[in-house]
């Protein structure tokens, strides 16, 4: 491992610098913005025949963040980088991964293709919304799991009588995986109904599984407006759970999410820094932030040395036994 470059756009330079610190590498920030809002990239280091890692979650400001990523890839390509690796800890538009209605785009596929056309040689994501998205492009796409980061933090809580819960039926596989990795007593599933025409609102309806007197851990890939997760938490509490915690990879905390956290009976939300978390999220008494910087640093080291990512890094919560 000698000569590779790390760079980042404006969406989560804090994470990029944390990775740089672990790997003892400078992290360049080549993005500037013109007065009319157009982005400009200039990479000052020599990239010829070097691997270039671009660390850029595509949120918040997904459209600008995507453009920054594409332009950095283009600049790296024109600078003769030998391999360009787009590290996208949070992949914006990943929820628009299929035609859930007629005459809509498959936006996630489009964004992935744009990254490929711009010249990326590899994509690395953390907990992508649906793993089928890896098939949107022809280049290698490695998806690693924040369970590597979240599990040690959860284990510190030494939770007895643990039940792992999914806030919706789509997350059952993840919850089952976490239950196995945490040797939990059981799992619970909250069913919710989502009205496509209202887009973001969802409400919990009912659940299967016994949570009475249990310490419950809800798992989900993201917390957006918090509606799904927090209504599930309250529902579980109302069924007599002793405590309810949530482990979430991507903390968007959009809109009034923090207010909802305040009002909710949820005891703690453990979240990673795949995307830049606002100061008020980090400082909120109910949140605990764990960094994916060690995970991503290790992934970079594995890519550089040609070792298997899945062997060492993937504690795949979706693998059921």
């Amino acid at each position, binding site marked *: 491992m000698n000569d590779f470059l790390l760079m980042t756009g404006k969406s989560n330079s804090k994470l990029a610098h944390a990775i740089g610190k672990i790997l003892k590498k400078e992290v360049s920030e080549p993005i500037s913005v013109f007065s009319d809002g157009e982005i400009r990239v200039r990479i000052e280091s020599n990239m010829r025949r070097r691997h270039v890692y671009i660390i850029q979650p595509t949120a918040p400001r997904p459209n600008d963040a995507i*453009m920054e990523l594409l*332009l950095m890839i283009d600049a790296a390509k024109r600078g003769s980088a030998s391999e360009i690796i787009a590290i996208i800890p949070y992949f914006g538009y990943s929820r*628009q991964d299929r035609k859930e209605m007629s005459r809509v*785009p498959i*936006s996630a596929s489009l964004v992935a293709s744009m990254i490929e056309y711009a010249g990326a040689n590899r994509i690395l994501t953390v907990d992508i919304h649906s793993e089928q998205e890896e098939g949107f492009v022809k280049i290698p796409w490695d998806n690693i799991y924040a369970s590597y980061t979240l599990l040690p933090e959860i284990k510190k809580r030494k939770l007895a009588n643990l039940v792992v819960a999914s806030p919706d039926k789509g997350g059952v596989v993840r919850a089952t995986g976490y239950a196995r990795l945490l040797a939990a007593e059981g799992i619970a599933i909250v069913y919710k109904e989502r009205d496509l025409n209202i887009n973001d609102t969802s409400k919990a309806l009912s659940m299967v599984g016994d949570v009475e007197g249990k310490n419950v851990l809800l798992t989900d890939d993201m917390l957006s407006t918090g509606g799904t997760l927090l209504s599930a938490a309250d529902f579980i509490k109302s069924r007599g759970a002793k405590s309810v915690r949530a482990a979430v990879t991507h903390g968007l905390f*959009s809109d009034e999410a923090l207010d909802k956290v305040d009002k909710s009976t949820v005891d703690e939300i453990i979240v990673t820094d795949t995307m830049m978390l606002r100061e008020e999220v980090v400082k909120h008494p109910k949140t605990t932030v764990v960094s994916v910087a060690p995970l991503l640093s290790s992934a970079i080291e594995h890519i550089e040395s040609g070792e298997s990512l899945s062997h060492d890094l993937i504690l795949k919560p979706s693998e059921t036994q």
Partner: protein
Amino acid sequence: MKIFAGSANKPLAENIAKKLNISVSPLEIHIFPDDEKRVRVLESVLDEDCVVVQPTSSPVDANYMELFFIVDALKRSGARSVTAVIPYLGYQRQDHIFREGEAVSFSVIVKTLEAVGVDKVITFDLHTIRALEMFKISVVHLSALSLFTEKIKHLGRWPRHNFEDVGGDSSEVNVKERVLVSPDMGGIRRIKILSEMLAPNRNGEGLTGMPYATIVKNRNLATGEITVSEIQGELAKTAIIVDDMIAGGNTVVTAVGALRQRGVEQIFVFATHAVFSQNAPVLLQEALIEKVYVTDTIEIPEGKMFEKLEVLSVAGIIAENL
């Protein structure tokens, strides 16, 4: 044919549709709380020739992404062809590497437009015609200059403004006392074309066009500061500055200063694209200018309108080319 309007310039799409005696087809653009957009085409487009109107002015990235999503939705829904009317093409000025280590941002845009399945692009007054070379798909490059010639021909009847330093009389301006001015070397091609279009009599002997001059300026790449080093060509009492776009307005203000310093009494400004970043409207309103003419390639929000501004519409030109 069906016309769709992105959110960047709905009035222009409406005006184009009106010229074609059709109405704009419904499109739903939902913005999620995290700023992701979801586009949905609300009527069948199977085997239809579709037109999407979306200038990619500020917010440029959001406007481009929205355009890409609309085109993707149309193509996946069976549209026969998609013509993207992008009257103002964002990122067009980043069409080559100025300094080592830069991206060619415009080529990323062009590649994406082609990849999502745009069949044809219609645009106006590119900053440099070199931008056209990047496309593999067909591009119809239109110009607002024909709108400008009509206005310029009638400028003679424009009464002089009440600037104290020019005496404030309202006599008509003599045609021979006018000169077209390009505010920089990059605009020479444009100014020459306009000069010829304004030739008094194309059939007779008066084949020489309207006189023109060019401002030679220096831009400090580090500070962005612009200074005028000289003006090539003879000036006249009335100067008509013509440019492709007005962004921050500093180019125009610098040109106005240089022209007035050299005795020009009356200045009109014509530009196709009203980018109007920063406080351009204030700068232009306060500059010693009679009037500023722009087009509606970019929608100008109410807050950026000013008294001296007149907006000409390119809707007719676009409709003729669809």
